[in-house]
Each structure stands twice: as C-alpha cells, then as structure tokens.
C-alpha cells in the first residue's frame, strides 16, 4: 500500500469548487450513519469506490505508532465472506478490480476501480472488507513482514534520518502523531488486540465516508450502499478520539546531515503554519501565496529558478486539520547552496514589500485555480480520492467555499499572513548533501547531537 510519507516534496492539494449550486457531488447519509458521496462522471465504463476514515498517526498512541498503517494492510486480507487471501484475490480478479490504500497523518483511504457493471458487487466487496475482517494472527504475522519491507524501502532513501530528525525537532514528544509510517520496533511487536482496538476506535461508520465516482447513478447508489453496509455499525457511545495538543514550535534550529548517496543539496525551511479547521482564512491566503511564488513572471521565480540559483525551489503548505507546516524548499548545486539559503531566509521580508506581487499576477492565480478545478474533474478515478481527502481533513464546507473565498483574498491578506507566520518567527532548517558536496559548499554536518538525541533508540 502506498504510504504518504512526504519525505521530500510535500503534497499540495488545493481544493476547488465553484458554488453550492454547481457542486459536482451529491451527499447523503447511509442508514448506518456513514456519509455517501456520489460523483457522476460517465467518461469511461468504470467506477472508483473510496472508503475514507478520519484516522492515521493522529489517532495513535506512542505504543501504537504505525499500527493504523498495519491495519490498512490487513484490510486487504480475509473476511467472513472471503475467508482467505486466495479467495480474496480471486474475487478481485473476477470483478476486475484494481485497488490500493494509503495512510497519512490524518486520513486512511482504501480505493478500488472496477467496471461500472460490477458496482453492486464492488460495494459488497468493500463492505465485507471493512465490516467483517478476520484479522487472523497468522495473516498478521505474514503481513508484518511486508510492512517492515515497506518501512525499509523508506529507510533506504538518503533523506530518511533527516526527515525523522526534523519531525522530532518540531513536534517533540508528540512527534508520533505526525508519523504514519511509525516505528519499526512497534510494528515488529504489533498484536491482533492492538489492531482490533484501532478498528473499534476509528474504523466506524460515524467516522467514515464512502465516495463513488465515475459511471454511477446517484439515485440508485444509496440503496445499494444501504443493502451492503447496514451491518457495519458504530458502537454505542462511540466518540471521536482526541489526542493532546502539540508543544510550542521550537526555537530556530538548523540541522545539516551528510549522506554518501545524496545528490545535489536539498534544503528545507519549516515554520509553524495554520490549521485548516481553525485558521481557515490564513490557509487560503497561503494557497494564494504559493501560486504567486510559482508565477513565472514573478520575482521569486526569476530570482531562484530562471536565474539558475536553484535547480528547483518553492513554498508549500500541506493542508491538515491538527497541525500546519509552511515549508520553503530548494535544491541547489553545492556552489550555490549557502547563497540560496541565505537569500531564501530573507525572502518573507521581501514578500510584504509594495510591488513584490502584482494585481495581474493575482488575477492569473485566480484564473489558474478555476482551470485546475476543471482539470481535476477530468479524471474521476483521482477526483474520488481528492474528495476523500477534503472530506476527512477539512470538511466539505471548506472545499465548497474554496474558490469563492480565494476570489476575496487580496495581496494585503497575503502580506498579513506572511507577517503573522513567517517574519521573525522561529523555523527549523534541514540540509541534506553528500560529504563531498559538504566540503565544496563549506556546509558542515552538525547532525551528531540530533542523531544522539532523537535516533539513538529509534
């Protein structure tokens, strides 16, 4: 299963919708309390079914970090109707299903695409998997090894240790809440009982939505969903899990780590950012800022990309409900690394100056967001997953009002959030480069104390 680790490039999802009357989806409640979203787009004779739950690292404990991801893997094992892996795989082939799943800090998604003529059977397949998993101990033993290999693939990337150090530096003893991959030692010892507890805590209808996009008739969908999912119920007295607040953002911290396999110099500067469910308007302003910085007639693009000072650079904000990170990133040659970082750190102060961004650029960005929305709708199999993201992370009100809200964001609003979150605010920087480039760039590896503090027992 794909685990959204977001090691280097932070995924930026930007919600787009026109107005309430033009919503591309229909939303109703199933009899078991789960929300059903239908997105009819009859382009090819396929439907994509996504089951999403508000779960992930954010609903784990230090002792269960990474086990929501293990549970995600177990979803694709046997259930009461298809009691073993062979029966499960055979049914997948019979129905022509391509499938996958992903686990992130705040969301778990399972998704299938199959011929639309098999929609009813596909819904039953999904319902059986979520409502009657067997979670057999021998299956867990087998799947544990697969999850550990996935972990090791991540650990084979040169940036893996630095990525972990950065998260630990920012979130302190709450870091596990932002780490969907979890800890190897915890995955090695995961028990069936722990997984059953996770299931009861978060994989319940009241915490989930079913999204169906493609060649689907919304009028018929609700009945089909109720038929198959009615036995999956939310336990009486269930409440969403609430974990503690994150510690204050640390003082400015700079970490440089060398790795013999690193190519080029990868630098990242991270500030504390807004949470999409709390500081909504600030997230909109940052989305505009990101697009303004990407504008190829803009000053940022010309200075850092068109000039060749960096090989790639930009600003990103990954929309999340419980934490926000604002990230400036750059990949450079060793020769330009020091200069690029120094200049990038001075950037936010430039962004608030008169004339840095123009009204023409702002108009272009707004037009681009509307066009991007059309392009998103053009791929139902991906759009279903996108809608699952917005349902789980921000709620659909945020999504529905997005473009209208973006129309109202002014350059002044952008400058205000830059002042509020970036200028004179603490940040954490990370630099990954090879020992050879470290010498060339005169950037010294200072990671030893961080490794000692954070990774010694990791």
């Amino acid at each position, binding site marked *: 299963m794909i685990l959204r680790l977001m090691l280097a490039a932070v995924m930026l999802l930007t919600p787009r919708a026109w107005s309430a009357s033009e919503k591309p989806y229909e939303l109703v409640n199933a009899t078991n309390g789960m929300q059903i979203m239908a997105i009819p787009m*009859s382009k090819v*004779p*396929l439907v994509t079914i996504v089951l999403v739950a508000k779960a992930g690292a954010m609903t784990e404990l230090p002792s269960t970090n990474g086990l929501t991801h293990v549970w995600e893997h177990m979803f694709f094992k046997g259930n009461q109707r298809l009691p073993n*892996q062979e029966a499960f795989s*055979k049914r997948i082939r019979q129905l022509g299903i391509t499938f996958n799943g992903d686990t992130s800090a705040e969301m778990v998604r399972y998704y299938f695409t199959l011929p639309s003529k098999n929609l009813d059977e596909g819904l039953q397949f999904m319902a059986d998997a979520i409502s009657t998993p067997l979670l057999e101990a021998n299956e867990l033993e087998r799947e544990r090894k697969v999850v550990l290999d*996935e972990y090791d*693939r991540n650990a084979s990337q040169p940036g893996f240790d630095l990525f972990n150090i950065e998260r630990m530096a920012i979130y302190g003893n709450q870091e596990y809440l932002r780490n969907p991959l979890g800890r190897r030692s915890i995955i090695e010892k995961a028990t069936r009982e722990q997984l059953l507890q996770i299931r009861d805590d978060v994989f319940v209808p009241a915490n989930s939505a079913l999204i169906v996009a493609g060649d689907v008739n919304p009028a018929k969908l609700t009945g089909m969903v109720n038929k198959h999912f009615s036995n999956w119920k939310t336990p009486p007295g269930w409440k969403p899990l609430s974990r503690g607040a994150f510690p204050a953002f640390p003082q400015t911290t700079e970490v440089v780590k060398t790795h013999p396999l690193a*190519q080029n110099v990868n630098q990242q500067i991270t500030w504390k950012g807004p949470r999409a469910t709390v500081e909504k308007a600030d997230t909109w302003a940052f989305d505009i800022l990101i697009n303004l910085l990407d*504008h190829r007639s803009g000053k940022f693009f010309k200075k850092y990309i068109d000039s060749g000072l960096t090989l790639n650079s930009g600003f990103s904000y990954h929309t999340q409900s419980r934490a926000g990170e604002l990230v400036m990133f750059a990949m450079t040659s060793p020769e330009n690394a020091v200069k690029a970082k120094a200049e990038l750190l001075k950037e936010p102060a430039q962004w608030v100056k008169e004339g840095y961004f123009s009204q023409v650029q702002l108009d272009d960005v707004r037009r681009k967001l509307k066009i991007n929305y059309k392009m998103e709708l*053009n791929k139902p199999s991906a759009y279903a997953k996108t809608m699952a993201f917005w349902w789980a992370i921000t709620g659909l009100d945020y999504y529905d009002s997005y473009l209208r809200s973006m129309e109202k964001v002014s350059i002044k609003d952008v400058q205000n959030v830059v002042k509020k979150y970036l200028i004179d605010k603490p940040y954490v920087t990370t630099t990954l480069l090879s020992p050879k480039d470290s010498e060339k760039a005169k950037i010294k590896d200072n990671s030893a104390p961080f490794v000692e503090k954070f990774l010694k027992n990791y």
Partner: protein
Amino acid sequence: MNKAFLANLICLFFVALPVFAEPSTTSTDRKLTTKSWLENGIPVIARETPGSDIVHIEVRFMTGSSQLPPERRAINILGFESLPYSTKKFPKDKIFALTEKYSMGVNCSGGVEISSCEIEVINDYLPQALELIMSVVTEPSFTPEDVELAKKHQIAEFQQEMQNPESRVNSVVNTVFYDTTHPYRLLPEDGIKQIETFNAEMLRSYYTSVLDATSIFITYAGPKITKKTLAAFESKLGKLPKIQRQVKSIPSPTYNSQNYVAFEHREIPTAYIRAKFNAPSATSTDAAAAEVLFEILSEKLHEEVRTKRSLSYSVNAATVQYSQGIGMIAASTSKPKETLETIAAVIKDLRDNKISAEDLNEYRNVFTTAYYLTMETHDQLAGALSNAQAYFGDASIVYELPGRIDAVTPADIQRVAKDVLQNFRVGIVYDKEKFKSEWIKPLRNI
C-alpha cells in the same frame, strides 16, 4: 408551444447532460476519431471529447535518442527540454506571461524512440495555445542562456535518478541488458558527461535535422476539431520540409551468459532487484498476448512473493513495447535469496503449465479496467492514440486492444511465456555483505 420555447427546452436538456453523457466504448470511441493530413503529408489525428472544453495537443516526432550514436544520445533529451524556453515570436518573458495568463502548460520531452511537444488548455484559450505550440515546435530560439539553464536542470534530473535506489537499479541492470553500443542504452553518468559538452549551436543544428514532415504527426483531443485549428497547424507545421531521414532499425538486446549480472553496493536495509529480458515489440503479433502475460506474471508474483511468503512489499512485472520489446521484473526485499527462488518458481510454472480459461478470463478483467483507466483524461487519450499511430501508422488500433485481448488463449500465454521468460539479465542494488551472487542461479537455470 412556440418554437422559441421548444428550442429553449432542448437547450436546457442538453445543458443538463453530465459531462461525457455516454460512457466511452470502443465503437463510440472510433466514431469520435478522425484523421486528416496537412499539405506536406503530416497526419492529424483528432479525437472528439463531447461535453468537455479541455483541449490537449501533441506534436510527435518519430525520433529519439536511439537514432543517435552512443556519445550523442543525450542531445535529444536536452534539445527537446530546451524547446519551450523561448522562441522567435515568444521571448521567454512572453511565454511566461502567456502560460500564466491562460494557465496552459507547454512541455517537450525527448524519448528513446519518440519525442514530443504537448500543450493542454481550456478551449476558450485555444487560439493562444495554438500560436504558442506552433512557435515552440517550428522556431525555437535555443539561446545560450536558455541552453545553460536547461543543462543544469537535466543534469540535476540525472543525479536524482542516481540517488533513488528504485531508479538506480534500472540503470544498473541496463549495464548488462544493453551492450555499450545498443541504441537504447543511456546511463545517467554518461548523460551527464554528454550534456556538459553540448552548446546552443549544437542543439539548433540537431533540432533542425529532426524537423522533418515525414516523421511528425499531430494528435488532438478535445471539442470537435475546427477548420481554424487545422489551418493553424497548416500555417506552421504544413510548411515543414520533407527530409525523409533514414531511420535506423533497432537490434534486439543480446544475451551474454558470461555477463548477465550487475551489482552496486549500497548500505541499505532492503535489496532492490530488477531483471530485464527481451519481449515482443509493439507491432509483434504476440503483443496482446504479452500484455496479458505480464498482467498474469505481475499478479502471480504478488501472490507468491508478497501475499503467501511475505518476502517483499513491492514486486511486479511489466513490459515496455517499443520497436523492440522489453520485459521487466522488479522487487525490493530483505530476503533476496528466497525472493529470487520464488520468482524463478513462478516463471517456471508459467512456462510449464497452461493457465485455465477461467483464470485467463479473470486476469483479463483486471487488464480491461487498467485499459480504461488509461483513457480517462485528454492527455491519456492523446498519448494512447499517438503511440498507436507511431507504431502502426493507424491511431484507431488503440480501440482494437480490448478485442485483441479477448482473442488471447491459454495456449498463446504459455507459448509467449516459453519464448519470453528466459535469458534474464539481473541488476541488484544492496549491501554486498548481505548478498551472494549464487542466489541468482535459479533465474539462470530456467
């Protein structure tokens, strides 16, 4: 009921129709696809996508790095990468302003056998997009500044390829899959060295040599193509000369039993394994059977290696169908010995035993879903049509694929398996202390 009211009612009815009112099927797809020619013979394949105002245009060049001598192969990549930086009509700043104003992406890429320039835009801005892509293709500037910047970007891309073990293992196996002169061989290290030597004049000269009406075609996916759009193609691409470039045929990669394993040491916790072997080409009569075979192989590897034995998170098989076909099996694992043994057993089973008709039908179902998943968007549609046009001279062949897949029999699968699943060349990226070369023997002994 007066006529105006009736007309309004009809309009309302049509406005209310959902995007792409009827799901696509191969027969409706075919009706929506047309082919015409510019005066100099350049084919224009147009696929109508009713109900959508997105337009995707590709200009495809039947040329790539495989047509170049080993020491110059990267010039095709760099040349195409540099094309959209600036043109005679559109200096860089103008391109930036235009693409931002109309949110249109123009990209060019140089491939192994086929290279292309593409643009995607909302129909309202099609005139601007046409003007831009025609200028990019027919009058690129190749200024020294642009070329230097493109060089930096391309070198960085090769370097990133070397950093990631997943892409690195592909280069490692290529050192034994292709001999040093094979036209498909271009290792990132060689690419970097070559790119450092190229300059603007060299790129201009190379690009002029491939701007040949006899090896170019256009693919359009969007609202019904208009005379105006065809006229825009005619005004620029219709004027290109017919050079009739000689196209070199590509030999099959040869197997050398003394040199079929390549290893690169990395102290990493999981081994990256990649095996490559010869497979049917795009135009082979076995191409459809090979597509199904690789679907079956991939599913069986997943089942035996991952599901039953938990040896790997990621194991799969795939085929690339150029004018020579390439088969590939890839896995990551901390138990390479057992994984290689299991891969060999799956291959032996496919070679020795005929799959049942029932099982074949089931695998076909999954393949059909995957087929339609590659037809959702305008760029995917245009890409599929372009590939068919490139290899068959007939874009509509793409719609025949489901029928050709249906015609594949269990005997076809076994025959192609016996023919294809052999002579593996293997690349490994892993810690040398944890790996023994004898573990590769099961693949050799098939």
